[in-house]
């Protein structure tokens, strides 16, 4: 009887350890084809998401509400992962009429972005809406103010793996997921 109990205990503990260790992020959808312009003037399409882990959000530079918080959080992540060549940050403007390339460049400099680890994209508004809704399943009504507050995590195959609240003041959950994707890929 004692031996049986011991066996059950061992099996329960090892099952628990196994499930914890096997946590992987789910597949939440492929990012579809798109071709936008990044703040330095180059093109940025879905192929530029591949090969790296990407953190993606939708913002606009004149946003009085949630964007400053979202951008501050992106910036914190951008600085925290400064040594990682496998991670990139992508912020897409939902206000292309006012967010010209020049405006986006100034915005990037204001965040002290001097390298290509963080790109600010613009495109015609219909394409942005399409990418947000069809691609990322994020509602894009009443733009520019109605953009999503979510950060989407995309793996190096262009597969969306997680969504996080970009306005949260606790970055530990998203960092845990980023670290998991980095470990998975490299």
């Amino acid at each position: 009887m004692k031996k049986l109990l011991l066996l059950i205990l061992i099996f329960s503990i090892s099952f628990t350890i196994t499930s914890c260790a096997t946590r992987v992020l789910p597949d939440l959808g492929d990012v579809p084809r798109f071709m936008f312009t990044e703040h330095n003037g180059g093109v940025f399409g879905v192929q530029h998401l591949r090969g790296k882990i990407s953190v993606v959000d939708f913002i606009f530079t004149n946003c009085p509400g949630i964007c400053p918080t979202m951008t501050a959080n992106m910036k914190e992540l951008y600085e925290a992962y400064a040594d990682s060549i496998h991670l990139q940050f992508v912020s897409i403007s939902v206000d292309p009429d006012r967010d010209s390339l020049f405006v986006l460049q100034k915005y990037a400099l204001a965040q002290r972005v001097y390298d290509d680890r963080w790109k600010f994209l613009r495109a015609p508004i219909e394409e942005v809406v399409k990418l947000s809704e069809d691609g990322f399943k994020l509602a894009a009504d009443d733009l520019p103010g109605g953009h999503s507050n979510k950060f989407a995590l995309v793996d190096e195959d262009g597969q969306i793996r997680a969504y996080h609240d970009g306005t949260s003041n606790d970055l530990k959950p998203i960092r845990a997921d980023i670290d998991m994707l980095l470990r998975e890929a490299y």
Partner: protein
Amino acid sequence: MTVADLPALNATLNLTSGVLLILGYRQIRRSNHPAHKKFMVAASIVSGLFLISYLIYHRAVGSVPYPHYDWTRTLYFIILVPHIILAALMVVPIVTGLTFAFKDKFRQHRALMRWVFPVWVFVSLSGLVVYLMLYQL
């Protein structure tokens, strides 16, 4: 072959599985998936044979006490106790990890085996040390 030969056999199986694990690990670092699979399956079979042989031996002789009472005794138990605990806990993770691989669930396989591998190598090599201390000292 008698029961008395089993400890030496067990130690050999332990050592062999440890070596096969390390060779299999080197293969996956070189992205050589077929060779990695061969080595790891071999390591699993050898570890499985060890487990059976170990259980037969201890069924026959009971537990074998460590005969020395000097500083080596402390070292012996420091190695033996983690070895036993980890070995017992590793069966489910190893079987699960192999299952993931055979089902092509490589993300889960990698996530799990990332830490299973070093623990399994420790269990194999510590088993060899336990044998050497108990029977050869």
